[in-house]
């Protein structure tokens, strides 16, 4: 195919060939013509105009009424042309805003970054993907001097930039807690007060905090209204929901967060997640818990990091590659004794 020119002559030649042959090649070139025209900011009314010109050249005896009808058609295209121009400015504006948000998202990532702890008897996997650029979910690992592993998972009710701002607050606050207060119940009580004081009413945060003691193979945990996780009991090959009590952060200044405990045997698995996983929407319906557990079951034999990534990919596809909510999933797997 010869190189493409964006002009009346070219359009006329294409149109002529199509009128003679009614061939698909001409129609394909019509498509290319319009795409190139768009790249050169040609508006739809100009396409109509070039069509009128070409038609008059090709059929000089075109009936007058048909000629007139084309002017009428041209008139209807002006507003579409305006919309196309507005689209172009909006795209530019959007580009600027998106690069601002990218910078902010990078800052957030630097700020919220965490390292998976390297513990002998645990295989840990974690994935957290924002629905948009900025993440309103949060997870964090800490290891104290006794080798205990703390894991936090949280979700701001809401998404995007405001949620991300609130998450940064949580992170700063946690960083400034003294080491002595690092048990789940105390941490949530502390955070609750911070949220209560600093966050506008109407913005709530749910959080689960677990503290794993390798010596006893137990996990102590408390939850502030967070989406319940699951405990997979390997011996009985059974999942059960991890029950907790405790209100979301930021509602009641005097809230207390009872602490529970879970004993992990070999091959047991603790699944922590946010509602972006369990409230995955497929078309018009939400996914059922059984389906979620089935997907987890399908991949949990894999190394923990690979497993969470596969589960994520599965749900990403199920939702047509457009997450409706931030998605965070953590696998906490007790290894075989070696």
């Amino acid at each position, binding site marked *: 195919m010869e190189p493409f020119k964006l002009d009346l002559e070219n359009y006329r030649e294409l149109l002529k060939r199509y009128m003679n042959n009614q061939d698909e090649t001409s129609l394909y070139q019509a498509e290319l013509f319009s795409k190139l025209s768009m790249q050169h900011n040609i508006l739809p*009314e*100009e396409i109509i*105009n070039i069509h*009128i010109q070409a038609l008059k050249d090709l059929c000089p005896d075109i009936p007058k009424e048909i000629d007139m009808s084309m*002017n009428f058609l*041209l*008139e209807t295209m*002006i*507003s579409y*042309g*305006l*919309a196309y*121009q*507005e689209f172009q*400015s*909006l795209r530019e504006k959007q580009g600027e805003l998106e690069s601002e948000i990218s910078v902010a998202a990078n800052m957030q990532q630097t700020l919220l970054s965490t390292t998976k702890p390297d513990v002998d008897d645990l295989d840990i996997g974690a994935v957290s993907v924002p629905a948009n650029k900025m993440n309103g979910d949060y997870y964090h690992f800490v290891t104290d001097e006794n080798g205990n592993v703390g894991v936090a998972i949280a979700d701001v009710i809401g998404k995007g930039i405001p949620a991300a701002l609130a998450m940064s607050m949580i992170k700063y606050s946690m960083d400034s807690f003294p080491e002595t207060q690092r048990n789940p119940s105390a941490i949530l009580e502390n955070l609750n007060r911070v949220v209560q004081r600093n966050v506008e009413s109407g913005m709530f945060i749910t959080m689960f905090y677990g503290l794993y003691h390798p010596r006893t193979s137990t996990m102590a945990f408390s939850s502030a209204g967070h989406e319940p996780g699951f405990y997979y009991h390997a011996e009985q090959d059974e999942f059960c929901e991890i029950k907790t009590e405790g209100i979301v952060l930021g509602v009641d200044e005097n809230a207390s967060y009872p602490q529970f405990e879970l004993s992990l045997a070999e091959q047991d698995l603790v699944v922590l997640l946010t509602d972006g996983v369990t409230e995955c929407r497929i078309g018009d319906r939400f996914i059922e818990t059984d389906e979620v557990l089935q997907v987890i079951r399908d991949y949990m034999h894999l190394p923990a990091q690979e497993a969470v990534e596969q589960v994520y990919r599965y749900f990403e596809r199920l939702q047509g590659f457009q997450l409706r909510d931030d998605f965070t999933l953590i696998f906490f797997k007790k290894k075989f004794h070696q």
Partner: protein
Amino acid sequence: MSQSCVTINQEWDIVAARHMGREKSKELNIGTVDQARIATAISELARNIYLYTESGTICFEAIEDPHHYKKGLKIIAKDEGPGIKDISKVMEDGFSTSGGLGAGLPGVKRLMDSFDIISEEGKGTEVIAVKWSR
């Protein structure tokens, strides 16, 4: 430098203003596409007057650039309505002024080659827009 004007009191006057604008454009050898754009710009300006003010005028003037290279059509839309409080706001896309149906003043700016607006609260608004023949 003679001006021809149409007074906008009712919706029908929008058509009269478009008609006059199109005739003037033809006299100035402005092409069909630009004629249609000018007509749409006039609709927008006249609809603003019709919707938001007691009355106003749309005037037309044939002009020449300083070097006499080209001719153009100047449209002056003038009213003594409430005026515009925040001009930057109405010049933003998406902040449409004519009942959701129009492209607003940013649309007029896009349809024409040059655009200026003067407005004082409580006193009225004047929009001046030019389209050159090519």
